[in-house]
């Protein structure tokens, strides 16, 4: 009897789940759509916050055009896909007159401080075609200078375009921010250009 119940009665009772399934999909059929009709509508900023797009630099709070980055190379070493290239800055070239003065001071026995290289990187290149968006670079950055962007509408037609200069991007962002135009209006404009 137990076997009969298990093999015959139970499957019949379980068939009810088919109706439950239809009920669920039927309910969703009448719910409002959640997809955004892209060129005509864009996602609002609130929903974009959780989006993890390509990696980008974070500017200094007081000087948004320069990154917080200290060229420590942690991100480059840790990136499993080798998509970041950081070039350290060189110390500024001295003019001939300054060099003369320094030499003279040295000869006079004074302590000379050679100008140090700025900490900010000279170049910060990033290849989106290689990035696996693993976030290792972000987690390992001691200066907290990297983040995932929420640049959701980025498309390109060639691999080359996917290699971006993050420093230039940061500069652009900084000027965009200081511009009076509010952000919400900038997004549809960008969308239109792409469409």
């Amino acid at each position: 009897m137990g076997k009969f119940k298990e093999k015959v009665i139970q499957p019949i009772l379980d068939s009810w789940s088919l109706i439950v399934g239809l009920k669920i999909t039927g309910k969703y059929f009448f719910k409002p759509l959640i997809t955004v009709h892209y060129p005509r509508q864009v996602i609002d900023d609130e929903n974009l916050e959780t989006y993890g797009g390509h990696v980008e630099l974070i500017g200094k709070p007081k000087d948004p055009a320069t990154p917080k980055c200290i060229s420590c190379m942690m991100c480059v070493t840790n990136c499993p896909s080798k998509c970041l290239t950081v070039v350290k800055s060189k110390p500024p070239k001295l003019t001939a007159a300054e060099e003369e003065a320094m030499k003279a001071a040295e000869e006079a026995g004074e302590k000379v401080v050679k100008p140090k290289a700025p900490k900010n990187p000279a170049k910060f290149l990033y290849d989106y075609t290689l990035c696996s968006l693993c976030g290792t670079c972000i987690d390992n950055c001691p200066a907290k200078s990297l983040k995932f962007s929420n640049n959701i509408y980025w498309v390109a037609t060639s691999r080359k375009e996917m290699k971006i200069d993050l420093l230039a991007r940061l500069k652009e962002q900084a000027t965009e921010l200081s511009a009076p135009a509010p952000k919400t209006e900038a997004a549809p404009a960008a969308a239109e250009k792409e469409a």
Partner: protein
Amino acid sequence: MNAFLMNLLVLIIAAVAAMAWLGINALVWVYCERKFAGHIQRRPGPFEVGPHGVLQPLIDGLKLMGKQLLTPDNADAVLYWLAPLLSMLPVLLLFLPIPYGPVLTGMDVNLGLLLILAFSSFNGLAVILAGWASNNKWGVLGAARAVSQTVAYEIPLLLTVLAISFMTGTLSLTEITAMQEGYIWNWFIFRNPFTFLSFFVFIIAMFGETNRAPFDLAEAESELTAGFHTEYSSMGFGLFFMAEYGYMVVMCSVCSVLFLGGYHGPIPGIDGWWWMLVKTYALLSLMVWARWTYPRVRFDQLLNINWKWLLPLATFNLLAIALIVKL
């Protein structure tokens, strides 16, 4: 002689109408299916071509026609191209005996039901030819699976249909419809508990017969890359595709004739072809709805459902109805 010519004329008109009807239905249901799927998943579905994407199926059809017709190397070209035609042409014939209305019946034959069942089996032949002639192992595997499925599901389908013809004593769809005239409880689905059961067996077998999800194993793209029509390009594939929708429409029409009173309305006096349309389309919507609800079954499950459940049920059902008729 004059009557013969008259009949021939009617037949030709009906065949052309069936072709148009099939084409329109395929277009409409491809669109509806995609919209349904979209809304169930809370996205808009096709949206760009025409208002709300209504021209999408048309454009897709044009695109399909624009593609090159390829015959695979070493394939048997004759059989290979015969298969899609063999799948498509019987469908046109299937529409003829279905009474869409008192006048809207292409061909009022005594054996309409038999004709439909016989010619719908052509699809099995078309599928196995397509799979075999493609010179492709997925094709052969897909065809083998499709045929074992079609053959299996045909049996319970036949048994339930047989139950109805036991009750009515006829194989003519027109007569079966006529017997359901009057109030809604005259429809065969409500006649007795066993016809109610027949209806469900018929519906499930119909899903299996027409290769629709959750029984769409003939074209399981995840295992067989498309099954028997893997190699077909352009309209070769297009014909199979149209035929699938054609069979869906035929099966749903037959179901509404057998169980839901055909063109008769729920109360007397409001009969008309629109009832047939409403019923058929409701059943088609159910098929689409089910497709986007249930996951695809495994092949052994598919055959188990049929041999262990549907077949005994249908047999029992047939015996019970025979008993009722005898009493």
